[in-house]
């Protein structure tokens, strides 16, 4: 190649339109069609998802109230677990005290209604925003540490927030919490709450799917795989992790608001570390390298808790046993196990990305 030619290629740095054909790009000396065939992210499960959604929409017409209530609880919990998994499974961030943001969302919405008599909609919108802000605050300190140290600091800072909820009797009602929070008319029935929760959850899950499939989502996964290399390719790792934490806290806050809409009460247990452990278990149980895993994990844990509470008071013990069994027998969760077990072709497992 001539010296002159070298210079052009270098100065064009990378992409240069080929003057002869508008449909080709010359790059790194290689000709490429300008419009590459794009394989859309058509979710393999699209039809199944739509069918499931339809079933869920029709469910209240047939199901007894108790089931409508339990399924609502599963939605709220699933959204909470998915919001955690956004930074845990996809970001590799040791978000050990995620319940804090759930609790902050719930308490914010509640206090704005009971103390300031705000309209419920405004209070509901404020919950996730304040939760995200709390995430920014706590995360700002935590991203300065790595891995386990990150998790320990988060538990410490999160416990401070819990103490406020637990001790500040005049405002938060202390360990009693706050009950019978006034709600708009149509949230007063289980069916109304069910539809409200279903719609918000579906919207949030769709948003999280978009985010995980965006360049930001790809970068977050790259950080999980290899933060050192990410720095070396020009990614400000801490900043991305912090943004991830803020997003996760926001959706955690949405889940908190949905809890209030369903239960019309709040109590310090919402931001206690035991709940954080519980949602961690949900992610691990469902499969924290899969998008839908946490939903499955949440459903299993909520069902288990509902059944177990009929027979025993030792729910935390059961949770511990589940965790131990999990570590030994299903290290990649139910979804990870199913993918291994039923993968259609060997090459399927070779495909990366959000599935």
């Amino acid at each position, binding site marked *: 190649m001539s010296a002159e030619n070298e210079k052009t290629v270098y100065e064009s740095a990378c992409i240069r339109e080929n003057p002869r054909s508008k449909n080709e*790009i010359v790059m790194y000396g290689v000709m*490429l069609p300008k419009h590459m065939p794009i394989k859309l992210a058509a979710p393999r499960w699209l039809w199944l998802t739509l069918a499931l959604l339809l079933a869920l929409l029709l469910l209240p017409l047939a199901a007894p109230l108790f089931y409508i209530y339990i399924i609502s609880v599963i939605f709220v919990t699933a959204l909470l677990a998915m919001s955690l998994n956004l930074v845990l499974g996809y970001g590799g961030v040791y978000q050990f005290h995620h319940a804090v943001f759930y609790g902050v969302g719930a308490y914010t919405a509640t206090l704005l209604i009971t103390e300031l008599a705000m309209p419920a909609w405004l209070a509901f919108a404020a919950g996730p925003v304040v939760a995200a802000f709390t995430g920014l605050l706590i995360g700002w300190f935590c991203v300065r540490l790595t891995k386990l140290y990150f998790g320990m600091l988060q538990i410490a800072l999160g416990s401070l927030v819990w103490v406020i909820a637990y001790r500040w009797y005049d405002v938060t009602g202390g360990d009693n919490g706050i009950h019978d929070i006034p709600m708009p008319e149509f949230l007063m029935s289980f069916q109304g709450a069910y539809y409200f929760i279903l719609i918000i959850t579906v919207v949030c899950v769709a948003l999280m799917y978009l*985010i995980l499939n965006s360049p930001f989502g*790809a970068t977050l996964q790259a950080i999980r795989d290899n933060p050192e*290399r990410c720095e070396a390719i020009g*990614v400000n790792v801490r900043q991305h992790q912090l943004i991830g934490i803020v997003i996760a806290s926001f959706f955690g806050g949405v889940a908190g608001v949905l809890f209030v809409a369903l239960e019309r009460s709040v109590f310090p247990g919402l931001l206690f570390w035991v709940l954080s452990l519980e949602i961690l278990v949900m992610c691990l149980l469902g499969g924290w390298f899969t998008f839908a895993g946490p939903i499955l994990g949440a459903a299993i844990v909520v069902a288990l808790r509902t059944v177990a509470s009929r027979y025993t008071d030792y729910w935390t013990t059961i949770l511990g046993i589940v965790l131990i069994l999990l570590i030994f027998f299903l290290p990649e969760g139910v979804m990870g196990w199913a993918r291994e077990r039923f993968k259609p072709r060997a090459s399927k497992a070779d495909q*990366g990305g959000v599935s």
Partner: protein
Amino acid sequence: MLRVESIYKSFDDFMAVNGACLTVERGALVAVIGPNGAGKTTLFNLITGLHKPDRGKIIFEGQEIGGLAPYEICRRGVARAFQIANIFPRLSVFENVQVAVFARQRQSHNLFQPAQKLARAETDAILQSTGLESQARRVAGALSHGDQRILEIAIALGSQPHLLILDEPTAGMSPEETAKTMNLVQQLARARGITILFCEHDMDIVFSVAQSIMVMRHGETIIQATPDEVRQNHQVQEAYLGGADA
């Protein structure tokens, strides 16, 4: 383009880099040689910001970059492939490169556009020029050792570097892979005008490819000169080429 002026770095009390100097002209292919433990990798770590220098200056394109964060140095045009394959093992080969392209395009904050539709042409071009296109959809962690090292370089190309630093690019490769890789390196330098700084154990490769060679020992620079001058140099012959490491 790059000037390293007597730079020092110690770990505890051990001087890993002890006053090394280096000059890299624009468009050149420069090699750093020296026995194991001479401080070559540490020198590269200093230039790319992985370590902060104790003393000394690193001037890149007229600006001091010593002590900047790695991502800032990368954004100024220095990219780097590591000695030990340092990839994103759970992502596909395509995504490995694409993420680097996103970072360079300042797209990595983009939250709502599908990543699959973005930066495709550039990513595909890099994969083609490095011969990885047939593996694009495979999970990177499943590649052979040789291909992982190539991917290592492909990721660095995603940053569109002015200066590309390669740390023993052919280590652990078969002779065919080595030839392929060195072809690629020369192609990058000639056809694309990327300035390349690399270190390498194979002296045949170094003396046939490099235009300038810097010899390191115990963290110090013995000499930096053309291959012929380095061959003639008595100090180098005694200290290195004639010694046990030749």
